[in-house]
C-alpha cells in the first residue's frame, strides 16, 4: 500500500469526485469576478487617460496621484484595508464587492499609465494635422489618436490584466468563495491535499490559454510595430 501514498495524498479519486462541484463553483466565482474587474478596470483606466489628455493641471495631478498610489501599494494591503476599514466608516460591502472594487482600482491605475504612454507616443504632427482639418479636440482624440495609441497598448494591457485577474485568489483571505477558498476549505475538511491539487489544476486550466494568448498577442503586435 505504501507506494500509493503519494497518489492517495494528492490524487485521491473519491475526493476528486466529492469536491469537483465545489471547485467548479469556485471557478464560476473566479470567472465572474475576473470579468467584472477586467471590464471596470480597463474602462476606468481609459477614462482617466482621456481625462488626463485635456491637460488640466489639478485634474492630471490627482490622476497621477491615484495611479502612483495604486501601483505602489500591494493589493493584499488594499484588500484588508478596505475590508476592515469600510465598516468602520459605516459602509458595509460584501467581500466579493470589496475584492472587485480593489482589483478594479489597481487595474485602472496600471491601465491609465499604459494608455497615457500610448497617447503620448502619437506624434504631435498627428494632432496638429487633425485639428487643422477642422476636427474638434475630442474628435481628434477618438478618430485619430486613440485608434493608433490603443493598438500599441494591447500587449502591455493584456499582460497586466492577466497578472491582476490572478489576484482574485487574494479573495480567499476575506472569505470570497473563489477557487482557492473552495480548495483550502475542502482540504481542511478532508485532511488531504487532493483539493489543493484540484484548485491548482483549475487555475492552470483557466489561465494557461490566457497566458498563451498574451504571448501570441505580444509577438503579433511587436511584429506590426517594427
Amino acid at each position, binding site marked *: 500500500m505504501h507506494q500509493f501514498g503519494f497518489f492517495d495524498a494528492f490524487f485521491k479519486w473519491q475526493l476528486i469526485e466529492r469536491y469537483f462541484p465545489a471547485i467548479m463553483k469556485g471557478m464560476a466565482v473566479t470567472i465572474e469576478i475576473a470579468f467584472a474587474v477586467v471590464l471596470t478596470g480597463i474602462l476606468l483606466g481609459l477614462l482617466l487617460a482621456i481625462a488626463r489628455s485635456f491637460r488640466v493641471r489639478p485634474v492630471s495631478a490627482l490622476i497621477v496621484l491615484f495611479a502612483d*498610489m495604486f501601483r505602489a501599494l*500591494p493589493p*493584499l494591503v488594499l484588500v484588508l*484595508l478596505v475590508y476592515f476599514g469600510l465598516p468602520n466608516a459605516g459602509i458595509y460591502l460584501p467581500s466579493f464587492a470589496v475584492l472587485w472594487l480593489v482589483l478594479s482600482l489597481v487595474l485602472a491605475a496600471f491601465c491609465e499609465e499604459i494608455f497615457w504612454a500610448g497617447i503620448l507616443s502619437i506624434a504631435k504632427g498627428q494632432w496638429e494635422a487633425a485639428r487643422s482639418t477642422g476636427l474638434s479636440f475630442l474628435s481628434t482624440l477618438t478618430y485619430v489618436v486613440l485608434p493608433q495609441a490603443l493598438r500599441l497598448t494591447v500587449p502591455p494591457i493584456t499582460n497586466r490584466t492577466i497578472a491582476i485577474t490572478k489576484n482574485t*485568489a487574494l479573495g480567499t*483571505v476575506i472569505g470570497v468563495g473563489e477557487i482557492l477558498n473552495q480548495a483550502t476549505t475542502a482540504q481542511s475538511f478532508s485532511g488531504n491535499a487532493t483539493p*489543493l491539487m484540484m484548485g491548482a489544476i483549475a487555475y492552470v486550466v483557466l489561465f494557461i490559454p490566457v497566458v498563451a494568448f498574451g504571448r501570441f498577442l505580444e509577438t503579433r503586435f511587436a511584429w506590426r510595430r517594427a
Partner: protein
Amino acid sequence: MEAIAQQFFNLAIMERALPLLLTGLKQTILLCLMVVPLGLAGGLLFALLSRSSLAAVRWAAIVGIDFFRAVPPLVLLIFVYSGLPFAGVRPSPFAAVAVAFFLNTSSYYGEIYRAGIESIGIGQWDAARSTGLTVSQTLAYVVLPQAVRNVLPDLVSNTVEVVKLTSIASVVALPELLYSADMARSVTFNTSPLVLAALIYLLLLWPVVRLVSRLERRMAT
C-alpha cells in the same frame, strides 16, 4: 468625521503599533533580499534554458515558465506550505515562501530576460564569436549587458511587483510588515495600523514607481 479620523488615523495607536510594524518591515526587507536575487538568478537560468539548442530543454523551459505564470502566487504558496506536508516535507513559512517565490518570480524575470536577449541582433553574436570569444563569454560580455539595458524598465517594474508580493507571506503567518499590521489591527480593533503599513509601503515603493515611469518614458523616446 472625527470618528473616521479615530478609526483610520489614530496617532496614539499608530505610535503603539510602530515598533511591531518596524520588526515586520525588517522581515519584509530580509525576504526581499532573499527573493529578488533568487528570482533574478533563476530567471536568467529559465531564459537561457528556453533558448537551448536542445528542443526538449527549450520546450520544458517554456512550459515551466507558462505554468508558473498561470498559477497565482498565493495558490502556489499555499500549495507548497499546506500541500507538501502530505508528501512528507514540512517546510517552515520562510522556506515555503522561498520556494513558491522562486518558481513564480523566476518565470516572470525569465520572460523579461528572454525578450532582452532576443532584442540583440544575431550579428552581435557572429561578430563576438569571430573575435574568438566563447559562447559563454559572448553572452556575459556582449549580449547580456546590452540585453539588460534594453529591458531595464521591465526588470525594475517586476522587482516592484516582487516586493509588493512579499505581503502574501502574511497568509502563511510569516511575520512581515502586513502580518504585523494586521495583528495590531485585530488587537486594537482599529484600522490605523493597516493605514500605517500602507504608508510604509508607499514610502518604500513610491520613488521606485516614479523611477519606472521615467525609465519607460526615456526608452520610448
